[in-house]
């Protein structure tokens, strides 16, 4: 093991122990590691933004580009200058223009993504499950596919009903509000499906975290073994 590898291995080991020390309670070592991480990440992110975004999209065309590129780049440059200037209290109002541009762009991308990326494919998957051709694709199992399609439909409707907050008052004098009976029943079924979905997501995250824990313990043991001359 070279000295260079030894130093970086030692740094990794030290940081691992410092972070894992949080398991016995919040302490100085954990905070040191966390603040070092914040500083390095902020610095690295700044370098990436400057190198990968601002330089190629803004500064390079302005310095080395053709005159037509220079003219086009004046628009984002103006927006960028306005965004920076608006951070000063006196020029706060100038930030509206770049923020409006960003809001319009984000809203349109969100609408497009929601419709073409999520709503249409997901709804199609729910509806396509009722295709009789699909039921008889694998012999001997049509009942299972029909059941699955129905369960999927009930689950999706139930989950959506769980988040239905449109309520009506029972009567004028009663301030308590109730969900319509149909949605109330579906929402109860949806709660079970929602719980199962969140449980599965939880299991996925837990498995990943557990693998990370095992990996860290392996790294520590391997480093110590190599340090002691073992294989």
């Amino acid at each position, binding site marked *: 093991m070279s000295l260079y590898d030894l130093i*970086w291995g030692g740094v990794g080991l030290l*940081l691992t122990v410092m*972070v*894992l020390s949080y398991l016995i309670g919040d302490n100085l070592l954990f905070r040191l590691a966390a*603040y*070092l991480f*914040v*500083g*390095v990440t*902020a*610095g*690295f*992110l*700044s*370098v990436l*933004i*400057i190198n990968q975004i*601002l330089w190629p999209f803004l500064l390079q065309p302005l310095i080395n580009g053709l005159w037509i590129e220079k003219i*086009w780049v004046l628009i*984002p440059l103006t927006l*960028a200058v306005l*965004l920076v200037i608006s951070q000063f209290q006196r020029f706060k109002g100038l930030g*509206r*223009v770049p923020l*409006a*541009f*960003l*809001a*319009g762009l*984000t*809203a*349109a991308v969100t*609408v*497009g993504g*929601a419709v073409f990326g*999520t*709503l249409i494919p*997901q709804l199609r998957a729910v509806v396509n499950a009722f295709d009789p051709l699909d039921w008889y694709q694998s012999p001997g199992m049509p009942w299972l596919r029909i059941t699955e399609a129905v369960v*999927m439909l009930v689950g999706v409707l*139930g*989950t959506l009903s*769980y988040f239905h907050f449109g309520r009506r008052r029972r009567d004028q004098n009663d301030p308590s509000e109730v969900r319509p009976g149909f949605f109330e029943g579906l929402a109860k079924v949806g*709660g*079970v*499906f*929602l*719980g*199962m*979905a*969140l*449980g*599965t997501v*939880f*299991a996925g995250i*837990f498995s990943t*975290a*557990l693998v*990370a*824990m095992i990996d*860290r313990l392996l790294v520590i043991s391997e480093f110590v073994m190599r340090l002691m001359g073992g294989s």
Partner: protein
Amino acid sequence: MKKILPIIIACATGLTILAGYFFQDRLAPILGLLINWGIVLVGLAGLIGIAYLVRMHIFRIAHRQKGGFYSVIVLLAFLFTLIAGLILTPQNAFYRDWVLNIQTPVEASLLAVLSVTLLYASLYLVRTRGWTPMSVGFLVGALVSLILNLAVFQFQPGSRGEVWALVLRRLPLAGLRGILIGMALGGLIVGLRVLLAVDRPYEGE
């Protein structure tokens, strides 16, 4: 004019991008341009955020506030990483080692701490919320998923066991699909409200 100009910019930008979904061939160059400008602004917003973080830590040191020592570490690590990155470039071997040998152990260890925290939180869930249909669904979903992922049970292809394992794997999809559709509907409504200038988040207070 002060109020109308941002509305015009937001609507024009949004509608141009939306039109690009339908007339991709004709609007592709304009879309690319608009998205590049958006990337520049988002990047700059990120830099402004980092500048605020740095300013806050300088303020803590200057006013000798509690935790000033940690702020010194943040600033030293930030300045070294920034200056070294600008001089050496992110492709440099030493620079990559510096960033990765700090980020990887800390991130992986934080994930490891998360595993213990998650285990504790899942047990705490039943204690605080009781046995509701949702908490039962949560525990069943988590347990079934963990057991299936462990691959303890090996089923013959085409056997009943394999079919049931597949059904159990697909059951949580209903809930996930519901969540996705709900999120998409929410995003669609919020997006349309911004495009129609019903909501104007860029106006501030």
